[in-house]
């Protein structure tokens, strides 16, 4: 087994990049594991650098921050102070008896395939370290709607990723729907790339970052950003339909249109309906964090303001598990600038805990910045909630779990006739979240449905029941076998669930 690093960072998005660079510059010996082939995470996703074209960096938000971090990462990994392992997913994280951590990794794309594409993949290895900084980010949060499994319906972030990362427009005429400020850059990005955007369908009220004045004032730059998007929406003549939701995605074998309805005063979609033709539907209800690694290690979690499960951290980004720091979306969705600040803070705090006093002033400054960004995030979450009672709008035929093709009717039946009143039992009896994605896509919705059927609000426990995932990535047989041999056991525990 190789020597333990001082710290292993998981994720090379805004949080993880900042953490790895800061930790190494403070003198720590760092490993950085990232599923993606190049650094940047979701926010700084960009076209394959080996085939870069002049236009690629255009529209890369916060570009200078990224290029600075990337240059520092290159220098640090060149001099051996960061062992950078791109293209590898951590599928198991364990804490060993002596307090060190082991991360087992697997190639994101299997070896023969990446060889064909001549992708550099770092050699298969496990990484050991005395501390962890987990920065796994998150993904688009989804609510099911009839027809959302038709080809041509995509996650809003995925549509963005396709544009930024692959120079590919997923359709000619798009509807962008769900809630939150992120719908706007997706819509204007599509329009700039040449698509007609037939509508942005926003469940909540306004272009209102400013419903909570305290939050809006604490991030003045964000107000400017909102105005810019509003101007861009106007320039591209994109209709912004607020207080409106998609009731059904229509099409035969692929998307042809959506049917929308205005939310009535009581919050039900009882208002006027409209059919909008489209060949691309981009759906997003905010983001929700990837929690498999923190949960695997037993980190405490809580319900955030936006209703997602997030990791509990203290004022120095420390989770409830000694030696495990968490930064970025996993501690609560709040955008890239906050993620960078949290990544930096976790590294500075870790360095300070190993006896480096140099960072104290910097820690104070970063913490101030984090508090301000958190206030802004809170205002955003309050302005763009998931509509209350949304499960009651679903017809029985609506698919909830895309992998196992479990419908809302199946869930209702399991609840009413089989007594599955909590998500854990619901999952056992009706199998939502038991397929390939392990509940990443339907977990939030299933928890919401379970609690709605029982006539109570969702709790952290509801979400935990659907968030534990072992392994955290599909692994190849050889890797499982190697682990079994090494530990003398039968491989990883079936389901660690969310101890908290």
């Amino acid at each position, binding site marked *: 087994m190789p020597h333990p690093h001082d710290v292993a960072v998981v994720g090379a998005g805004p949080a993880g990049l900042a953490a790895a660079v800061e930790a190494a510059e403070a003198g720590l010996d760092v490993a950085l594991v990232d599923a993606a*082939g190049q650094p940047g995470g*979701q926010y700084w996703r960009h*076209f394959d650098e080996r085939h870069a074209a002049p236009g690629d960096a255009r529209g890369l938000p916060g570009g200078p921050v990224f290029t600075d971090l990337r240059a520092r990462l290159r220098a640090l990994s060149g001099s051996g102070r960061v062992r950078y392992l791109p293209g590898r997913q951590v599928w198991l994280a364990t804490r060993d008896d002596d307090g060190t951590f082991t991360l087992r990794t697997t190639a994101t794309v*299997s070896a023969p*395939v990446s060889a064909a594409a001549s992708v550099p993949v770092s050699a298969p290895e496990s990484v050991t370290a005395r501390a962890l900084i987990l920065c796994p980010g998150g*993904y688009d949060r989804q609510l099911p709607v009839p027809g959302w499994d038709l080809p041509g319906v995509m996650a809003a972030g*995925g549509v963005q*990723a396709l544009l930024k990362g692959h120079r590919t427009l997923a359709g000619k005429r798009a509807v962008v729907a769900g809630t939150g400020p992120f719908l706007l850059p997706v819509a204007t990005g599509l329009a700039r790339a040449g698509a007609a955007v037939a509508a942005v369908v926003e469940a909540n009220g306004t272009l209102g970052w400013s419903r909570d004045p305290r939050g809006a004032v604490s991030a003045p730059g964000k107000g400017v950003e909102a105005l810019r998007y509003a101007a861009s929406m106007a320039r591209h003549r994109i209709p912004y339909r607020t207080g409106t939701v998609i009731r059904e995605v229509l099409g035969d074998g692929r998307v042809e249109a959506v049917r929308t309805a205005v939310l009535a005063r009581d919050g039900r979609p009882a208002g006027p309906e409209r059919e909008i033709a489209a060949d691309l539907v981009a759906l997003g209800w905010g983001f929700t964090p990837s929690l498999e690694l923190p949960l695997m290690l037993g980190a405490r979690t809580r319900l955030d303001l936006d209703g997602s499960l997030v990791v509990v951290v203290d004022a120095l980004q420390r989770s409830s598990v000694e030696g495990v720091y968490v930064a970025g979306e996993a501690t609560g969705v709040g955008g890239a600038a906050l993620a960078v600040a949290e990544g930096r803070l976790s590294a500075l705090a870790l360095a300070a805990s190993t006896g480096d006093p140099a960072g104290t002033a910097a820690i104070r400054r970063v913490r101030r910045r984090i508090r301000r960004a958190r206030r802004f995030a809170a205002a955003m979450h309050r302005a763009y909630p998931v509509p209350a009672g949304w499960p009651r709008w679903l017809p029985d035929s609506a698919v909830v779990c895309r992998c196992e093709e479990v419908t809302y009717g199946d869930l209702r039946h399991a609840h009413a006739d089989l007594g599955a009143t909590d998500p854990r039992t619901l999952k056992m009896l009706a199998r939502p979240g038991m397929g390939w994605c392990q509940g990443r896509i339907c977990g939030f919705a299933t928890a919401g449905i379970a609690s709605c059927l029982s006539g109570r609000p969702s709790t952290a426990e509801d979400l935990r029941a659907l968030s534990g995932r072992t392994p955290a990535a*599909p692994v190849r047989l050889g890797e499982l076998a190697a682990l079994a041999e090494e530990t003398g056991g039968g491989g990883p525990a079936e389901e660690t669930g969310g101890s908290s």
Partner: protein
Amino acid sequence: MTYRMTFRGATVPAEPGQSVAAALVAAGILDWRTTRKEGRPRGLFCGIGICFDCLITVDGVPGERACLVPAADGMRLGDGTDTGDDPAGPGPGKEDGDAASA
């Protein structure tokens, strides 16, 4: 240069650096597998490796995520029966190169 891949016998061009899924979508191909139960068509959904909707056989290797696999010249796509029907569960897949998931 433009890469040439084949999808079920048809030629699909790709820009170097694009993913397999991006090239398929750019060629107007929106779905490349069917679901196991209802036989419904599936293609891209999350676009970032989370949902596993986009599973595809690449050069004979089944169960790859098309949104993550970089395109390569001469790649053969979708020549298996892509149903996403590999045995689910943390246990055994069929052979090495097969993936298992909990």
